[in-house]
């Protein structure tokens, strides 16, 4: 009999709000030092199969909830041909909600968010790369940093940590105003353009430290400032710029789950002519520190789970739930954020793997209301800032990267997938 899993709390959202323009598909890629060998990669995918049963599932519709049903079909790797973060067609790839793609030196994992968050996808990618390198004939000591295929599935990998850390508590709710939204011209053919900027992680960290801030807060502030300088400054809008930052809840609430376990905190600021970048960095850092405090994160878990636990929601049929969830997502989520900045952090690999991995990239799917999103990841002291966008205008990222290179004095290396840019 086939095993099945309930969707975790965060995952319940995604099937309801997903469409071709808001795909809920993110991508984590590794750029290797050598071109990818297809056979070895397929072999690696076959090997990791058993270790990640929560990934090898298909989405099924129930009467009151969706659920995931396990499958024994193979993971089929494919050459990367489409633009990144495209919606995953469930009639391809044996109905799986994730893809393993390769192109030249790049191995990418694209994941439908209902399966897992960035943390889970990174674990999967790490295991995949480990076995890939092993099949390529490299000896690697795992140093306990890799989930091995023969280590057996841990029951804790599959827990819905939201439920475990749910606690009834008093929550203060504040009505926030609508955030500023970036507007732009759609590409002639719908798709996502990606621009990556590579900087030195240690230099950027030193720079952030010098301003008394963390990398995430520093970049959030710089990004808000870029949006103000290129857009809001010359418009009549006085809406706040709000950067939504997904937070890995595993750090505050120890869980080894490979499923979703993240919360989103909003860093907002009403920027005016008098606001300086330094001031903004300070404010963003204070806000991030406060909002990622344990008590606030506990509130996030409470808010997310309370609705799901409500006895009344239990008996609302799925199609009505989809409708309400979609409405709530747009009114309370999408309209209150300008863009998402997701920092998946420094990826820790076994020492011997570093020389094979040049870069790790994190691509956050854009949507209608936030046509541009940002993903940050680092490995080997190389930090990649990735903008994924579905609009032509590149003014904000130009300002952002130029400031990072000019005033901050970092060396920034740029490359892109050139989607929608005719040569």
């Amino acid at each position, binding site marked *: 009999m086939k095993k099945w899993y309930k969707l975790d709390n965060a995952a319940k959202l995604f099937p309801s709000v997903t469409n071709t323009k808001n795909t809920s598909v993110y991508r984590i890629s590794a750029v290797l030092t050598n071109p990818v060998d297809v056979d070895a990669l397929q072999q690696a995918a076959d090997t990791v199969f058993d270790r990640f049963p929560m990934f090898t599932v298909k989405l099924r519709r129930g009467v009151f909830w969706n659920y995931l049903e396990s499958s024994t079909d193979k993971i089929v790797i494919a050459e990367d041909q489409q633009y990144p973060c495209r919606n995953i067609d469930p009639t391809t790839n044996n109905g799986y909600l994730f893809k393993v793609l390769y192109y030249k030196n790049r191995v990418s994992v694209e994941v439908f968010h209902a399966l897992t968050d960035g943390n889970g996808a990174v674990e999967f990618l790490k295991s995949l790369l480990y076995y890939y390198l092993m099949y390529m004939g490299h000896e690697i000591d795992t140093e306990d940093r890799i989930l091995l295929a023969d280590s057996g599935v841990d029951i804790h990998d599959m827990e819905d940590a939201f439920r475990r850390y749910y606690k009834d508590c008093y929550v203060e709710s504040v009505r926030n105003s609508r955030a500023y939204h970036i507007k732009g011209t759609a590409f002639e*053919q719908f798709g996502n353009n990606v621009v990556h900027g590579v900087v030195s992680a240690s230099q950027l960290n030193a720079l952030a430290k010098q301003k008394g801030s963390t990398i995430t807060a520093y970049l959030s502030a710089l990004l808000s400032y870029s949006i103000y300088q290129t857009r809001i400054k010359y418009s009549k809008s006085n809406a706040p710029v709000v950067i939504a930052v997904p937070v890995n809840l595993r750090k505050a609430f120890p869980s080894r789950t490979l499923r979703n376990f993240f919360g989103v905190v909003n860093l907002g600021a009403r920027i005016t002519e008098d606001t300086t970048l330094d001031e903004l960095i300070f404010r963003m850092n204070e806000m991030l520190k406060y909002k990622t405090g344990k008590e606030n994160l506990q509130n996030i878990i409470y808010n997310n789970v309370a609705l799901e636990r409500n006895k009344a929601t239990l008996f609302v049929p799925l199609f009505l739930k989809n409708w309400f969830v979609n409405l709530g997502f747009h009114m309370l989520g999408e309209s209150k954020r300008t863009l998402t900045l997701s920092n998946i952090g420094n990826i820790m690999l076994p020492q011997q793997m570093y020389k094979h991995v040049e870069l790790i990239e994190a691509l956050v799917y854009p949507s209608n209301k936030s046509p541009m999103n940002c993903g940050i990841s680092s490995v080997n002291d190389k930090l990649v800032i990735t903008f994924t966008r579905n609009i032509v205008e590149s003014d904000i990222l130009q300002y952002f990267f130029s400031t990072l290179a000019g005033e901050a004095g970092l060396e920034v290396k740029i490359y892109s997938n050139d989607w929608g840019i005719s040569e």
Partner: protein
Amino acid sequence: MTKCIRCNVTVDNQHYRCPLCSKPLKIRGESTTEYPSYKEIYQETKPFTVAKLFLFLTISAIVLSITINALTYHINPRIWSIIVSTGLIYAWIVVKDTILSNKHIGRKILYHYVMLSIFLLVIDIFVGFRGWSTNYAIPLFGVAATFIMTVLAIVQKSLWRHDIGYILAMFFINLCPMLLFVFNLSHVIWTSVFSIVYSLLTIIGMIIFSDRKFISEIRRRFHY
């Protein structure tokens, strides 16, 4: 590696132009971070497809029938264009959702049942409501749809895996003719009773002829 002087950044060899400001750059070469070329995908969207043609023809026919109906209303004071339009929309569903799509057969049957019910109800209303659609057609179509679904499920031996959702949906739909009766839209009771009894027997049959899989499937669908 080339420096884009305008943006103050280094641009990777793979680019002819700066990805930030489109300024042309001199050198181009291989790079480890290169993406595939998307040229083929750009050509992928076809302006002309069979589905688009049928959509256009359907809309044209609807607009034309409404226009003719409006212009000749003084000769024939009936709103017959509504019937024609509903029929055309139904024909569109047949082409798009049944012939051109590869959706689950249960879903197709469900769509046909719903659309056909609406179509017949519209005809009934616009030729002077006599109630033959609510009295007979809708409840009996429900029974027929459930029957086809059950037969398909048995023939394909997929009763407990893929079709159960649709059979359950048909069960609830077959309860609806009773509502028609309650709201005085239907005056013949035996058809409503027949549809309820028939779907009840289908469910009972499913339970009796089921194995453990059935219970587990129900548990997933309802999440208890």
